[in-house]
C-alpha cells in the first residue's frame, strides 16, 4: 500500500467521517439558526385606526385624555400594551387638533396633564411639557410625540392611525 498514490483505507475513513459529519452539521445547524432567529423575522402587530373619543366631547384648548390597549399574541401568550395621550382641540375644525402621545420622550413614563401648572408633568424625573408638547423643564431630549394621522369618522369619533412597533 505504501508508496502508492491510492487513497489509504485510513484516509478514506477520515475523509468520509469528515464529509458525513459536515453534512450532519449543516443539516442540523442551518435549521437551528432559523429556529433561533424565527421570532425576529415575524411580522409585528397590525396597524389600525383607533377611536379615541367623540369630537364634540373635546373642549377648546382643554387637553382631552384618552387611552387604549393593544393586544398581541407573542408565542404562547397574549401581551397587552397600554397607550395613551391627550387630544387638544384648537377650533371647530376637526382637522385642527393636536394629538399628543403621553409617553415621555425621556424614559417612556406616562405624563399627566396638570391644570394648575398648565403643563404635562412626568412623575418619573420631573419633566415638564407645555400644552403644545414642548419641553419646558427637565431631562427630555425632544418634545412629546404627536399622532400626525387622524380623521373624523362618520359617527363623530376622532380616530388616530396606530402604527405597530
Amino acid at each position, binding site marked *: 500500500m505504501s508508496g502508492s498514490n491510492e487513497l489509504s483505507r485510513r484516509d478514506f475513513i477520515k475523509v468520509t467521517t469528515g464529509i458525513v459529519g459536515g453534512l450532519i452539521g449543516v443539516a*442540523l445547524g442551518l*435549521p*437551528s439558526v432559523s*429556529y433561533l432567529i*424565527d421570532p425576529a423575522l415575524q411580522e409585528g402587530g397590525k396597524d389600525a385606526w383607533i377611536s379615541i373619543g367623540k369630537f364634540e366631547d373635546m373642549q377648546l384648548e382643554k387637553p382631552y385624555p384618552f387611552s387604549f390597549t393593544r393586544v398581541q399574541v407573542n*408565542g*404562547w*401568550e397574549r401581551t397587552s400594551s397600554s397607550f395613551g395621550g391627550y387630544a387638544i382641540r384648537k377650533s371647530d375644525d376637526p382637522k385642527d387638533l393636536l394629538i399628543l402621545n403621553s409617553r415621555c420622550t425621556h424614559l417612556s413614563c406616562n405624563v399627566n396633564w396638570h391644570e394648575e401648572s398648565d403643563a404635562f408633568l412626568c412623575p418619573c424625573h420631573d419633566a415638564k411639557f407645555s400644552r403644545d408638547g414642548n419641553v419646558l423643564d427637565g431631562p427630555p431630549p425632544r418634545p412629546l410625540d404627536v399622532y400626525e394621522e387622524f380623521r373624523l369618522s362618520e359617527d363623530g369619533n376622532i380616530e388616530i392611525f396606530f402604527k405597530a412597533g
Partner: protein
Amino acid sequence: MWKTVYEWLDERLGLNDLYTNLLDRPEPKGNWWNTLGSASLFLFVLQGLTGIFLTVYYTPSPDHAYDSVQYIMEGVAFGWLIRGIHHWGATLMVIVVFIHLLRVFITASFKFPRELTWLIGIGLFLATLGMGFTGYLLPWNQKAYWATTVGTQIAGSVPFIGEFILKALRGGPDLSALTLQRFFSAHIWIIPAVLAGLIGIHLYLIIKHGESHFPTKED
C-alpha cells in the same frame, strides 16, 4: 499560511498529541458492537444541543408548558425538527446505551482492570433512564401527567421510606407546579451535570486502559 497557524496552535495546545492519544489510539480488531459507546456519546451531545435549543421556547409552568410545546411544534421555524430529534433521540439513546451495556456484559469487558469503567457505566445507564423519566413529564400532556403519577407512585411503594420518596420526587403529596419545576431542573441541570461528569471519567478510563479484545475460545 494555515500550516503556520496550525503549528503555532499545536506548539501551545498539543493538538497532535491529543489526536494520537484520543482518536488514533490502538484498538483491538474492529467490530461494530464496539462503536456503541461512541454512538451513545454522539446521542448525548445531540440531546444536549437540541435540549438547549428547546429551552429557548419551553416554559416549565403548568400554565404554559403545554402551550409552549405546541408553539415549538407549530409556531417556530423547524421547531418540529428540533423537538422531533430530541424526542426520538431520547428513545434511541436509552436503546443504544442499553445495548452498549449488554455488549460489555456479554463480552466480559467489565473484568480487571475495567471494573470501575463498568460501575460508572451502570451509573450512566441509570442517569440516562433518569433523563427519560424526568423529560417525559415536561410536555405536560395527559400521557406525561399520568405516566409521572404512576412512576412516582411506584417509587412511593418502597417500604418505610416510600412516602418520603414520593413527596421528595413530587415536591409535595400531589403532582403540581413544583413537580414540573423540579423535574425540569433535574432534566436540564442536575442529571446532565452528573452525566457529563461520569462520561468524563468513563472516557478517561477507556483511554487509559484501552478497549478490551473480544474473548476467544481459550479465554
